[in-house]
């Protein structure tokens, strides 16, 4: 914990990497293995990719004297998750040619390709870049894809906020040319390997860094789960600036009480013209103050809890050269996505579509990959990924609605008409590709929802909107700690059952049952649904009810109890 402790191995790798190059070129050229050298597996994250393997096949292949079935996940840097139909078609073609015939929409408005093999990695990244999208800094110890409430065309202010998201993403992008040299065959020039990184310095950040922008009253990006959250203050259609929230982060480690999910706290307000400077001050403060010896404790939230929020704010203001303005009033009243057709301020229309677990694929009657390809071929607006693994066909002229509706129906793009609990659920990828997963998530979600829906139906609760999230490990890609119901993987078939978050991303849930299997989870939910059906107040959400009724622990979430 003490910053004087020796740096973690990853710090050493970064320092020796010549600005994220390492021996990636040699690793890619080695045709004896589908894997990278160990150090390079750390560095490739900064290029937007993770080395993974099919864990379902590991044991089988070991017996076959074959190495694990290595493949690569590639994640895009798509601030706010906005792409044109042409880009959609390009990404679809890449998924079909190089990846596993699916596009995965992430909880951070990015696309993920899964199953790309090493010798096609370069061709895949080149194809992504040809579509004018890149994957720089999509993973790694840097500012990741910047989120922003989707559908900015709903108001002029939305468009402005989206533009700020793009500027932030550019401003906080690493300056190394490593990406361009390795993947895009850019000529090496003088200074290659020693590029100036004004924001990051030679060893980048101690850990990943997440930024999101939200426009009240919608908190559809789960703003407080981010290291840096910017709450747009819009009055009369005019963007005045942003409340600045810092220190959010949901990852934790089972059995390590020093780790916990934490929500960001607002430290002040900034006008748009100082937004980039404030963001840079927060990032560089974390760069210099964050723990580089223990990666479990290196997120900004721990830095803030270690030195105190006031001290951190003072550090940001010192770097900024001026004090932050006082926080402005705002109110969130909902998280989650809006589905179906919505009319924008300019008479254009937006269709919110449910994509279960964000997995765009052709599966039986639900031919979502083909359907969205068909829509992209006729669509004149754009596509927007939400922060909840869903998709908006945005900016549609009234005359095109019928065509799009017909295609959506033809290809089974109608999951948004299903029960709310299914419509709003989130799941991370987990098995078989994620190396961190301890239990199933995405693959288990449909079955789990069948059973939960049956329970809800039995209690007459089919229409109740209940936020359910499942995660294969405690690191929280599906933001489970903000779910009214959450399953956090502990072991194959076993989860921590977490309950009681609110519905707009402002209250964490808490541990209710530890390390339980499906029968116990369902029995417990059955009992609680019965109480909820009988005792809920009008419009009272399940998470709020559980807390009010004393059915779950009333204390704030256990993690905060162990904060220093």
């Amino acid at each position, binding site marked *: 914990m003490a910053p004087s402790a020796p740096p973690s191995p990853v710090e050493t790798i970064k320092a020796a990497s010549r600005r994220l190059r390492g021996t990636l070129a040699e690793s890619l050229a080695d*045709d*004896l*293995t*589908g894997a990278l050298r160990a150090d390079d597996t750390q560095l490739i994250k900064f290029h937007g990719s993770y080395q993974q393997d099919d864990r379902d*096949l590991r044991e*089988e*292949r*070991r*017996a*076959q*004297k*074959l*190495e694990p*079935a290595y493949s690569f996940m590639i994640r895009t840097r798509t601030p706010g998750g906005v792409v044109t139909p042409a880009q959609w078609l390009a990404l679809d073609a890449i998924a079909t040619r190089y990846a596993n015939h699916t596009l995965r929409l992430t909880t951070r408005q990015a696309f993920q390709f899964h199953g790309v*093999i090493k*010798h096609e990695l370069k061709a895949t990244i080149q194809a992504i870049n040809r579509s004018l999208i890149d994957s720089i800094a999509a993973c790694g110890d840097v500012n990741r894809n910047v989120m922003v409430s989707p559908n900015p065309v709903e108001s002029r202010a939305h468009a402005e906020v989206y533009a700020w998201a793009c500027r932030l993403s550019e401003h906080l992008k690493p300056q190394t040319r490593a990406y361009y040299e390795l993947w895009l065959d850019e000529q090496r020039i003088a200074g290659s390997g020693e590029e100036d990184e004004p924001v990051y310095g030679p060893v980048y950040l101690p850990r990943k860094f997440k930024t999101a922008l939200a426009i009240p009253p919608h908190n559809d990006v789960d703003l407080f789960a981010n290291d840096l959250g910017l709450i747009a203050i819009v009055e009369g259609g005019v963007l005045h600036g942003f409340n600045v929230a810092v220190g959010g982060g949901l990852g934790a480690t089972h059995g390590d009480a020093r780790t916990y999910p934490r929500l960001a706290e607002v430290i002040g307000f900034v006008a748009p013209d100082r937004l980039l400077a404030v963001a840079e001050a927060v990032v560089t403060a974390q760069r210099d103050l964050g723990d580089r010896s223990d990666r479990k404790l290196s997120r900004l939230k721990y830095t803030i809890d270690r030195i105190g929020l006031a001290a951190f704010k003072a550090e940001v203001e010192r770097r900024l050269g001026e004090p932050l303005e006082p926080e402005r009033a705002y109110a969130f009243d909902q998280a989650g996505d809006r589905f179906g057709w919505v009319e924008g301020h300019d008479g254009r229309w937006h269709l919110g579509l449910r994509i279960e677990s964000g997995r765009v694929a052709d599966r039986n009657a639900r031919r979502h990959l083909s359907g969205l390809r068909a829509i992209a071929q006729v669509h004149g607006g754009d596509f927007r990924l939400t922060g909840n693994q869903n998709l908006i066909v945005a900016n549609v002229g009234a005359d095109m609605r019928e065509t799009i509706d017909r295609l959506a129906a033809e290809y089974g793009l109608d999951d948004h008409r299903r029960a709310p609990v299914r419509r709003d659920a989130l799941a991370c990828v987990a098995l078989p590709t994620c190396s961190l997963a301890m239990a199933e998530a995405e693959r288990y979600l449909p079955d789990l929802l069948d059973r939960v829906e049956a329970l809800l139906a039995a209690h007459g609760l089919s229409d109740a909107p209940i936020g359910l999230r499942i995660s294969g490990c405690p690191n929280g890609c599906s933001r489970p700690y903000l779910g009214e119901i959450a399953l956090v993987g502990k072991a194959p078939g076993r989860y921590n059952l977490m309950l009681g978050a609110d519905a707009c991303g402002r209250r964490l849930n808490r541990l209710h049952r530890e390390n339980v299997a499906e029968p116990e989870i369902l029995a417990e939910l059955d009992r609680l649904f019965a109480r909820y059906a009988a005792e809920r107040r009008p419009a009272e959400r399940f998470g709020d009810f559980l807390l009010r009724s004393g059915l779950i622990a009333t204390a704030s979430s256990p993690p905060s109890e162990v904060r220093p």
Partner: protein
Amino acid sequence: MPALPARPAKPLAQDVLAQLTRLTEGLDRDALQWASGYLAGLAAHTIRQPAAATPAAADAAVRATLVYGSQTGNARRQAETLARELEQAGLPVRVVRADAYPLRELPAERLLYVVVSTQGDGDPPDDARAFVEHLGGRRAPRLSQLRYAVLGLGDSSYPKFCAVGTQIDERLAALGAERLFARGEADVDIETAAAPWRRTALTQARVVLEPPPALATVTPLRSTAAPPDAAVWSRERPFMAPLLSNRRIVGRDSGEDVRHVELSLQGSDLHYRPGDALGVWSTQPPALVDAVLAALRADREHSVTIAGETLPFAQWLSGRRELTRLTRPFVAAHAQRARSAALDAALAADGADALRALLDGHQLIDLLRRFPAPWDAADFVATLRPLAPRLYSIASSRAAVGDEAHLTVAVVGYEAFGEARIGSASRFLADRAEGDAVPVFIEPNERFRLPEDPARDIVMIGPGTGVAPFRGFVQERIETAASGRNWLFFGHRHFRSDFLYQTEWQQAHRDGHLHRIDVAFSRDRPEKVYVQHALRRRGRELYDWIENGAHLYVCGDASRMARDVDAALRGIAVTHGGHDAESAAEWLAALAADRRYSRDVY
């Protein structure tokens, strides 16, 4: 290998032994081998005078010369057997491998027997290439003094059955030599045709050769030696080896099924060296036997007597006869019974393509079903070829695995006429479970040996299951701490599913035991790449390795791969060694003659 014939030898008196030791002191390997052959000759004949210094000096008029060209050892075995039979009859004889035969002696020969196999698409075995070329060339001498006969070996499931034997037989006649008796053509059931041919050869030799002058002749090591006693188990008496493990070693999305099979040789006293093959006797899958019986509407219990042996029909089919590959003789016999115009056309002189299509695209059962015909059970069994053992290059080194032999088995299977088809030997092995016994014998392969000098570099070219012996080679080189470098070229279809022994090669590479490895996967990229492409890509370094004394080994498919690799090697000599096409071929031939370019191809 024993240095002397392994007939029970009378122990030498101590002083004699000491003299012998003094005599042999300081002799190199070649000299020792020559001497051992000399001694073997002494043992076989009464000596009237000291032996001639070289075999060439011996009087050709009074001796039979047996020249063999052999790829898998069958032709060599036939030549050696005949030599033994001639010797036992008191007739002088020498046995010479074709590539060791001094071609200039040919005009002086009086009696020549040639035993030669045919490979793949009518090619001679590697060791007979130069012999065949010389004989066929313009500079071939007139051979008016020569009397000869030829025994061809082949596999009648190939269209050019025994083509090389035929070619030599006809050429010798054309050069003026007198054919003593008709050419023998032995199919995979070699003895059926070879035994009568050898009997005639013996009779004719008695006539041609004068009563034995019994000059001692130098016989190559092994050639006239009786089968060593040490090997209790043999081809005819296989050892029942318990199966230890049978594992699929290709990924689940592979287009084929390759097994790593481990067999126990414990208690057998069977010994093998890296490069040797393991012979496996299989039995036919019961479903196939049933299908054949059904197609013939035959009674499985019906007694059938062949050559004095009586067994139920089903038993002949399951354990004694080849039931998968079609042969031309069988097709001909079947055509007589089936009265099919299509079959007759395929068998006609101008039906070569149709016949090839028939042989390639059909198994026995297909023919029986497509062209039903009445068969007498005994005729049927007699017409089928006896089941032959399948030889697998051993994929292990005893130094590494002890009393075990490991095999790499591609399970032959394909679809035809809407049914899954299987190759009998590989399927037999694939279906064995742990503890099952597999009838096996060791088939030595002296032509595929690691360098005696452990400091020599080796280059191993083994795509697909051709990589098998190289697993044994690398194990051996590790265990014996050989200081030479090891370089493997491997190729197959898909990197992900078909990289045989991938993790073992990676480990050996990491540990510095496999110094270089180059791979070529043909179906992973738009352009197909094979090992020969990898060879060319590394041509410069490869040429340097070879010029620095490296030994080259090629194992695998004979029909295309070995030919393409051969061409690639010659190309490398042209590109990197300043050779022209002709001298490159000579360069490679010299490597082969030097035993630095060895092939185990099939």
